[in-house]
């Protein structure tokens, strides 16, 4: 699935739920379904700064594409990072760097998080962008 298609799929998924509580359920499911993240990778340098809960992000380059793995001690935050990496994992650095991350605004995620968590979301996006910049 192309980057655009994947983003559209998430926008469509989100629009199925009218209530934010249901959207949280969806994020919680995503969080629970995220692949296990090895304990030894939960290091200070993989920790995303600016989140109230702890979020770790790791990346690996394979055949010119960046593959992300992540974890968090809070499940909704884990759902959010899971959502982000499902869109951006397996893309080229150029693709990620050129993206405007506008779909996050389109699903209203940032506006519906507490200010501290919204900052956390911004930090997650910044880290993904930076990883792409470094990989170019």
């Amino acid at each position, binding site marked *: 699935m192309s980057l655009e298609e994947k983003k559209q799929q998430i926008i469509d998924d989100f629009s199925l739920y009218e*209530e*934010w*509580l249901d959207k949280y*359920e969806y994020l919680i499911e995503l969080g629970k379904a995220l692949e296990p993240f090895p304990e030894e990778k939960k290091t200070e340098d993989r920790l995303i700064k600016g989140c109230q809960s702890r979020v770790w992000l790791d990346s690996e380059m394979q055949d010119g594409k960046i593959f992300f793995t992540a974890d968090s*001690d809070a*499940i909704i*935050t884990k759902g959010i990072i899971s959502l982000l990496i499902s869109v951006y994992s397996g893309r080229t650095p150029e693709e990620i760097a050129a993206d405007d991350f506008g779909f996050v605004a389109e699903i209203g995620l940032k506006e519906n998080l*507490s200010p501290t968590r919204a900052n956390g979301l911004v930090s997650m996006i910044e880290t993904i962008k930076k990883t792409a910049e470094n990989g170019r």
Partner: protein
Amino acid sequence: MAMSVSEIRKQFPILSRTVYGKPLVYLDNAATAQRPQAVADLWQKLSLEENANIHRAVHHLAAQATDAYEGARDAVKEFLNAASREEIVFTSGATAAINLVAFSFGEAFVHEGDEVIVSTAEHHSNIVPWQMLCQRKKAELKVLDIRENGVLAVEDLEKMISQRTKIVCISHISNVLGLVNPVREIVQKSHEFGVPVLIDGAQGIVHESVDVQALDCDFYAFSGHKLYAATGTGVLYGKKKWLDAMPPYMGGGEMIATVSFNGTTYAPLPEKFEAGTQHFNGAPTLVPAMELASAMRTDKAVQQEQEAIFEYVYTKLMDDDRIVLYGTEKSAKIPLFSFAVKGAHHEDLALILDKMGIALRSGQMCAEPLMDRLGVTGLLRASFAPYNTLQEAEYFIQCLDKAINMLV
């Protein structure tokens, strides 16, 4: 005058609003209480009809503003039963009041090798100013621990106090544990060794009627905003003998007697500690706020509702295997509940409860050392006020159950 909780609620307009289409259930009262109409009305009247700077000018408005401000000081003196109005210093809040003492008392009385005692259950506001003082003076900060049920280990205090102890700084009620500390006993014990005591009354002033002479504490600090008054208001009570012996905290207008480049003399108490333009539109709002606080505290209907809320929430949280409540000593507990849910992050719970219309606090609650002591990264806190109802408490417990089921 007897009141009912529903009548009291009408005095707080915000309580009838909705969030996300659901009725607001405000359980973050330990962070800040809501404002009653009387406080907002007074603020508006002072700002729009009687605004003038206090103490200096001779015109009519200035006299009126000064009367309102100094009248508030008299009212605070009565509220705390202080010995004199000179012992009441207006500050921007409890934090500013404690910083004032940490600086000025510290300048006069704390020297290299001296000791300051705080407890492990203090808010950062009653830790960091003392830490800063100790760094500045090369003094030592000693920490009084808590027992398993959250109660302060007061029996250790005597052993901790030494010849070098200069001040003991303890909260009246912990903002996390919700337990009333035995402050009278702490003051007595400390005084036996000639050591003064500062009480951080940020939470205490809301729940307890405070008589500083009966308590015999040397300093008592509180914020107006937790007591229904305007934000940015606050009070430091200090015994005159200490305030007289302490140098000013800030220099500027209002706090001086004469100024020349050869030397400046300071104003008498309490102006000595009130440099610069004061919060003269705000401080008078303490008057209707304190009146309402006292009326609510002594009202039978409110007391009954508060007891019902306490019994209900305490029992529900204690009996639920999924939940760990901190600060469990029932005889000392107020309706302030900090707890963890096994397998669920406090932030997730707060986020879900928010969408159900419930405002409560999650995280470290400005008490990181206590979180470390309890071995948690953060907690969820529901803190009730006299305008909360049993119905709200029941809704909270129902929603909490739903939220836990979503997460665990």
